[in-house]
């Protein structure tokens, strides 16, 4: 008897603990997701209902040249940011790790400060520094290329420039993750390896790199998701131009939804982007895990 009552109580307690999460999850994730899916099959404006149009939005999307252009730009941006930022963060973390005490704290603060800034401030700073007429970085560009370049108005410079700004802005967080990973590697391993006569390069390749792999995989995956969702910097720096050479999927969602009032079509684009991110990031994480195990 007591057993049974305990079991029911047990269940109730469990339910009461899980319920708040389930309720919030349903309210702020499951329900909106369901609505986006439903909306993507309608011709709804931004606010208010619409008529069911079946697969029309998707047919239109897959025939839209701008969609492929944006997809391509998203891919290009991922190439420009994900691996470079990971490599840079790892290098900085290794260097900072060799410092100690106050110096280490100071170096960390310096690298982490940009991450604290809001995106609008970051883009303002860089827009000024790279301003075509008055930017302090223009003499540097002029020294390298021979003439000043309006970087956010030039189709070849725009994506790399946005990538540089993005890496500068978000790198501090990755440094922090790597540093935490480095501190988790027991020092005995290094001591033992050194006793066996391992060189610095061998220490990195045989001890640091494999033991740090889970963190590297995490950073790569987080970065991939984050950079596929690129919007703010593009919207604030180049607005997708010149001639769509920095147009990305989220900008397309924004323009369709808020400028052209095509809520249904925007929902279809965002759903495609969502599925794309889910598939790519799951795939990448699995590949990285397998890659890690083989070592």
């Amino acid at each position, binding site marked *: 008897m007591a057993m049974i009552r305990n079991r029911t109580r047990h269940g109730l307690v469990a339910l009461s603990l899980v319920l708040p999460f389930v309720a919030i999850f349903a309210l702020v994730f499951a329900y909106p997701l369901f609505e986006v899916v439903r909306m993507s099959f309608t011709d709804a404006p931004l*606010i208010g209902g619409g008529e069911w149009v079946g697969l029309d939005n998707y047919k239109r999307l897959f025939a839209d040249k701008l969609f492929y252009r944006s997809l391509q730009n998203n891919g290009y941006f991922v190439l420009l940011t994900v691996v470079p930022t990971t490599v840079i963060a790892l290098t900085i973390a290794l260097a900072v790790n060799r410092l100690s005490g106050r110096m280490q704290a100071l170096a960390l603060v310096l690298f982490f400060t940009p991450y604290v800034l809001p995106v609008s401030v970051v883009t303002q700073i860089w827009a000024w520094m790279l301003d*075509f007429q008055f930017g302090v970085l223009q003499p540097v560009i002029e020294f390298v290329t021979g003439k000043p370049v*309006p970087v956010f108005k030039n189709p070849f410079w725009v994506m790399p420039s946005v990538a540089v700004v993005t890496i500068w802005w978000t790198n501090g967080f990755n440094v922090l993750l790597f540093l935490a990973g480095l501190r988790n590697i027991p020092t005995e391993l290094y001591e033992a390896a050194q006793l066996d006569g391992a060189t610095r390069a061998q220490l990195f390749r045989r001890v640091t790199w494999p033991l740090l792999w889970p963190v590297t995989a995490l950073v790569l995956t987080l970065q991939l998701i984050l950079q596929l969702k690129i919007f703010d910097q593009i919207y604030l720096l180049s607005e*997708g*131009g010149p*001639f769509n050479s920095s147009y990305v999927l989220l900008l397309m969602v924004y323009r369709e939804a*808020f*400028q052209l*009032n095509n809520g249904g079509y925007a929902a279809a684009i965002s759903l495609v982007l969502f599925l794309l991110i889910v598939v790519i990031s799951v795939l990448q994480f699995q590949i990285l895990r397998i890659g890690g195990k083989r070592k």
Partner: protein
Amino acid sequence: MKLTTFASAIALAAGLALPAAAQQTVTWWDFFAGGDGVRMKALINQFNEEHPDIQIQGTTLEWGVPFYTKIRTSAAVGQGPDLMTYHLSRMPLALSEGVLTPITPEDLETAGLSEGDFFETALQAAKGPDGTLYAVPFDIHSIVLYYNKSYLEGTRFLDAEGNLTGIESVADFEEAMQAAAENGSETPVTYATGDDGGVYRVFYTLLSQQGGILISEDGEVLPGDSTEKAVKAIEIMTKWHNEGWQPEQALYEASVALFTSGKSAFQLNGVWEVPTMKDLHESGKLGFEWGAVEVPKLMDTQTTWADSHAWAIPIQGQTEMDPEKRDAVMQVIGWMEKNAIQWADAGHIPAYRPVAESDEFKQMQPNATYSSLADDATYDPRSEVAGVASPSYDAAQNIISPAIHGYMTPEEAVEQVKSELQSRMR
């Protein structure tokens, strides 16, 4: 006991609230910054002083996409303003969004206005396809040609009184720019070559002067020989860039600064910069004599891009606006129209004819010089992809601006504009 205190408290509160209920607060949103904004705020303050029973609470938001995005989302859920300024070029988009309430004949009567008081072009632009009025036109504004007299002295382009003369074709204008360059002008003509508005207005003016059509009534982009005319317009702008006559990638503020600081002999910009020039000149900071004229006939016909600011009352979500408040809003509109002479001081041409035809306006300079443009202005095409903060403006920045800077040929740019705008239409 308790009940009576409660009741008397309610009575007291109601008594206090009574005069407050009689006073209407009109929430007002506009997008006027700079010299425009100063004059609009002065009008609001004067209205508030003269009308103790109606108080305008004004907020200025950022011009363009941010303003219109906010209007749509807030009006749809009933959090929008009671009265707002609106560009008539955006009317087709506004109608498709359903954010505006019709202005009835009774509304106009409350405001003390009638349809016949307005310039016909502006009035037509304020109506839906079925003839329903959705906004009350306030002004007609356009781009004009500003000039700095000091660079033109000794050339054939200044007459005996020191006014601009002799520009009747692109060749004349280019000769004038060449002369100004020889007289030391760094960028003889300035406009916002890196921004949407600046590029769009110059392009649309050059296109319209050739009789070209951006979007036809049945929704075709650059129909027939308008394609070649658009190419021609971009070729002209590209030439000005190649010759070094116009600034490279200038954003709006920089383009104005080039003229006010005396580096440019000409400026192609909106009439709304007239107050900037006037204020600078009066305070003695300008350092040169200036003038402004209607954009000369550079191509085949005399016409200029134009648009109107208008008053509009947005929907209030699912609910209707309280009739008393609506009357108050219409009174505000009526008062503003009748005091539009102060708005004309910001360079605009009043859309309200009794003011535009008044002696006071006819003596106002430089407005009176260019006010003839009201008669031969070309408004934006009636299309959901045209007008302020529309794909047409985006295309100007995204495609035409790179083209005039040499990133693609005029032909390629026109093809891209066509396919871009066509694909945005449904």
